[in-house]
């Protein structure tokens, strides 16, 4: 688990593998009974922490201006991680599904207790964020974000994703 500072707020990130109860987590989240509120990201789409921080920045900005597109701050984080403006499609692709086993958990301004209770909620093994790069599914990322081989020649995968997150609403 690591905490990053984004625009004066803290973003806590924790990476889990071999997650067995994504079914329950998904249900709890969708019925709004998940306590405390967290964002579940499909970690195979995350090669590096930076694009998540960029999405977090966008999310906090929308919150401060009260222009959230989705219902909660944390669902907005998942939505903003996508390169597509289609809300339900983005939440499905960038969030978790019933059979996800590799999950990145994120929460804004989480206290230590909250993070501990989140760790208990998840039936899986917590691993270091450094493992993101090695476990990312490059082919899936390239397909989802429509990144050409040409672009990877001049940029990292993380930077290509960042550009799409930033420019999404201009496209």
């Amino acid at each position, binding site marked *: 688990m690591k905490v*990053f*500072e*984004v*625009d*004066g707020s803290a973003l806590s990130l924790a990476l889990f593998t071999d997650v067995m109860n994504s079914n329950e987590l998904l249900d709890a989240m969708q019925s709004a009974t998940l306590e405390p509120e967290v964002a579940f990201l499909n970690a195979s789409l995350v090669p590096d922490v*930076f694009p998540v*921080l*960029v999405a977090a*920045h*966008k999310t906090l*900005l929308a919150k401060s*201006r009260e222009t959230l597109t989705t219902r909660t701050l944390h669902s907005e984080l998942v939505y903003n991680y996508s390169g597509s403006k289609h809300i339900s499609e983005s939440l499905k692709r960038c969030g978790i599904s019933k059979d996800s086993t590799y999950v990145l958990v994120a929460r804004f301004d989480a206290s230590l207790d909250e993070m501990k209770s989140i760790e208990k909620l998840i039936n899986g093994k917590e691993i270091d964020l450094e493992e993101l790069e090695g476990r990312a599914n490059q082919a899936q990322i390239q397909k989802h974000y429509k990144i*050409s081989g*040409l*672009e990877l*020649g*001049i*940029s990292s995968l993380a*930077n*290509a994703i*960042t*550009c*799409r997150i*930033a*420019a999404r*609403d*201009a*496209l």
Partner: protein
Amino acid sequence: MGINQDGKEGSLILLKQGAEARVFESTFVGMRSIVKERFSKKYRHPSLDAKLTLKRLNAEARCVAKARCLGVSTPVLYALDPVLHTLTFEYVEGPAVKEIFLDFGLNGVNQELMNDVAAQIGYTIGKLHDGGLIHGDLTTSNMLLQNGTNQLVLIDFGLSFMSTLPEDKAVDLYVLERALLSMHSSCGNVMDQILAAYRKSSKQWSSTWNKLAQVRQRGRKRTMVG
């Protein structure tokens, strides 16, 4: 709602001011960044001004994204703020090609570096044009050479547009040619080297070259239609 400039974390230091935008240095999530703020033109009608500024902002973001898709190196776009009319980019460390060439003019030409830079310029513009993207403001101050990798990075897509017309490509190249002639004539014939590299990387070279010859004859942005 303006941008704060009081020297604290997340604040901005003015680097340059142009006709359309102000460029600041700042930090974005701990990374050194550039914030480009398009300011509103007070002489315009406010509703038109708001629409135009936003349109230009989005167009610039799209063009930067499109350039990257084509394999052209640009700074990474970090954020776009439609309310403050700002674009936040990665801070690219390195001199502008303008400074390098001016230095050549003063202290003699490093031929190897010159050849490398000219080849990269030609190659990059070739890729851009083949992808149907016209930069619109090709000058040596809009090209940076990244420290360490010596990779050419194009900046300022504020005047860019999509076009496949040889006329537009030729004008784009002509703007660069005039800029080189006016600023860097002491560096020798850079344009020839650039065009040689462009010819190698562009697949639509012949139509563009013919048009360039025409554009040179008459100056730019003048159609012969009476």
